């Protein structure tokens, strides 16, 4: 169940698997660590909400420059969306393999997750480059500043996620499925799924609503 029978008693090492009502004492690390990370992810969502609120306020502040319906390509967005969604799915498969301590499949699925994430990022960078090339860069207007920052912030998080995936693969290879490595995998999984949740909001509010006929 909890697994290792340690002779020593830490704060959350060898602790209880309580339902949070505190009756049996502190909960174990495998619960405490992902919960803390979940809280961090929620605070990150609040950060994005501030950026979304900014985008909504500035969506029409185009300063005579290009507006959303002139700039966004729905086909590219559709491909990005599928790529990120599939990468979320594959990350789930990686988690399943990791829980079963299958190194090969964990690494394969993690690699595919990373590659799909890289596809997403590549398309996004291409889109940004195109827009900047046409003179629709973030310095052109408040609307564009808001767009580049909101979508770019998400892209920066994806980039950080890719670095993390790479580090995770290295750690699995070097250290195997030790408890602290598994906890990090859990946190990575929460992070990666949360990124897709944010993307749902982005493609809906920014891209779809921005290009309504």
């Amino acid at each position, binding site marked *: 169940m909890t697994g290792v029978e340690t002779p020593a008693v830490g704060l959350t090492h060898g602790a209880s698997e309580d339902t949070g009502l505190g009756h049996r004492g502190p909960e174990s690390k*495998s*619960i405490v660590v*992902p919960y803390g*990370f979940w809280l961090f992810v929620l605070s990150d969502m609040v950060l994005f*909400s501030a950026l979304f609120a900014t985008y909504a306020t500035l969506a029409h502040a185009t300063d005579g420059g290009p507006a959303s319906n002139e700039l966004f390509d729905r086909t590219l967005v559709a491909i990005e969306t599928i790529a990120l969604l599939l990468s979320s*799915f594959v990350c*789930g498969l990686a988690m399943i393999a990791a829980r079963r301590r299958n190194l090969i499949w964990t690494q394969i699925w993690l690699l595919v997750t990373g590659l799909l994430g890289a596809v997403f990022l590549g398309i996004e960078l291409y889109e940004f480059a195109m827009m900047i090339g046409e003179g629709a860069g973030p310095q052109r207007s408040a609307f564009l500043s808001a767009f580049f920052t909101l979508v770019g912030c998400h892209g920066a998080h994806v980039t950080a996620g890719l670095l993390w995936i790479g580090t995770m693969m290295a750690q699995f290879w070097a250290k195997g499925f030790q408890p602290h490595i598994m906890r990090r995998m859990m946190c990575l999984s929460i992070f990666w799924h949360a990124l897709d949740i944010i993307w749902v909001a982005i493609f*809906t509010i920014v891209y779809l609503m921005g290009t309504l006929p």
Partner: protein
Amino acid sequence: MSEHEREELMDVAPGAPHDSLMSETLSYIVGLGLALLLTGVSFWVASTSSIWGPGVAMGLVVLAIAQMGVHLVFFLHITSGPDNTNNVLALAFGVLIVFLVMIGTIWIMGHMNVNMGPMPELTNLQMQRG
């Protein structure tokens, strides 16, 4: 206390799956399917002319929220069981704050834009210049 009873009392980490290989994989497959469906419908709603204009934005928001829910349930395994209470409460708090920040800002800034927009003389000047 029996294995089964202890398991029922176990609190669950957010994102931690709850059961066997088949059902875990199934959870992700169903989630993927639903998410793809909702994405497709969103794209369709945004391009069709058969839905009343103002309803499109509302429809897109509803579909987005539904898809976020799919992610939360099928990928992050957030459920309403007692072992998940802390996770759900944290999520509810986060959602409340997101709601307050976004709706509050949009409401306030909307009023500001109406009341505090550039005066006609200024706009005239800008248009003359620009």
